[in-house]
């Protein structure tokens, strides 16, 4: 079966697109799928360092598009996983070096050889986003439970719908259960109600994400991390399995608040 092309996008910067791309791709590859990730964030490449492949870059996406190398030559194989590849972004160029139709052509070339093609979109709604979304079969919108990220996600969802790219699916990242419980962070239900699209996954805030990124090893390969489990769950859902959403917080009902009130000594 030809690959599904999956674009991870967000509108707002820094919400976890690159982290999610690396980890969902790694989780799928770890389960035996053949996966390639394209870093579409030209000029601000990062997927290479998050995957720990930064030392092996020879050619990049713009080299492929401008015909300086063959597609094969720009694909870096991750030696830790049987079939995970990266096509890095160019670092010294800007987004206008690639067009949406370049991306469509590139993905059409990759489709017959892979199970999954992941595209890590840059932040924003400009050319880079257009490039990333153009070849998508499935688009994933990632957000944080925080007002500006949610607002930008809503904008992006509107743009994806306008492009008739099919209904995007939502990942809510960096949920802090303690804050949600105290009523100081939007809950997953709140965000879902506001954005009103299908949920693909919930990812807790987890220090292990930063630690594993320091090492260049996707946290999804760490059996003990909560975020890693959440990314593996997303991979399973993409494979069509029914996996319950990870429990983030207790509902924080009246009784539990009374209880925490007494625990705090009534002060």
């Amino acid at each position, binding site marked *: 079966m030809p690959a599904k092309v999956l674009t991870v996008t967000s509108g707002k910067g820094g919400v976890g697109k690159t982290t999610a791309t690396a980890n969902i791709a790694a989780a799928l590859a770890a389960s035996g799928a053949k996966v390639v990730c394209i870093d579409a964030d030209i000029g601000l490449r990062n997927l290479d360092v998050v995957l720990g492949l930064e030392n092996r870059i020879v050619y990049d996406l713009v080299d492929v598009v401008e015909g300086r190398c063959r597609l094969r030559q720009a694909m870096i194989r991750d030696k830790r996983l049987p079939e995970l590849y990266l096509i890095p972004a160019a670092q010294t160029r800007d987004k206008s070096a690639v067009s949406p139709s370049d991306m469509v052509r590139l993905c059409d070339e990759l489709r017959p050889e892979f199970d999954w093609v992941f595209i890590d979109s840059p932040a924003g709604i400009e050319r880079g986003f257009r490039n990333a979304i153009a070849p998508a079969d499935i688009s994933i919108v990632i957000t944080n439970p925080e007002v500006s990220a949610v607002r930008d996600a*809503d904008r992006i969802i509107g743009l994806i*719908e306008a492009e008739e790219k099919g209904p995007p699916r939502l990942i809510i990242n960096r949920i802090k259960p303690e804050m949600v419980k105290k009523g*100081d962070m939007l809950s997953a239900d709140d965000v879902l109600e*506001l954005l009103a*699209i299908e949920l693909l996954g919930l990812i807790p805030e987890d220090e292990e994400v930063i630690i594993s990124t320091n090492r260049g090893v996707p946290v999804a390969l760490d059996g003990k991390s909560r975020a890693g489990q959440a990314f593996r769950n997303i991979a399973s859902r993409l494979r069509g399995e029914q996996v319950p959403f990870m429990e983030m917080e207790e509902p924080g009902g009246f009784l539990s608040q009374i209880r925490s*009130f007494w625990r705090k000594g009534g002060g």
Partner: protein
Amino acid sequence: MSRLMDRLLNRSSSSASQAKERMKLVLVHDRTNLSSKVLEQLKDELIGVISRHVEIDEQAVRIEISQQGREQRLIADIPLRTVARRRLG
């Protein structure tokens, strides 16, 4: 302490519920490009057009955007003055 009591008595005072209520309005505005000012204007114009044909209770006219999933709908509630009410004044 007072924040906790606020929360026990009135959940809408938590920062998360405030965020949610604010976002609801912001997203409707972003999606429809209709500000409350434009809505007011629309209401006045509607009243003008409709009352040319039928007598309406202008004070009770309500216009709002209702949401279902990602779909927005403009709902206008325009009470008509019935013959009976007209007689009562």
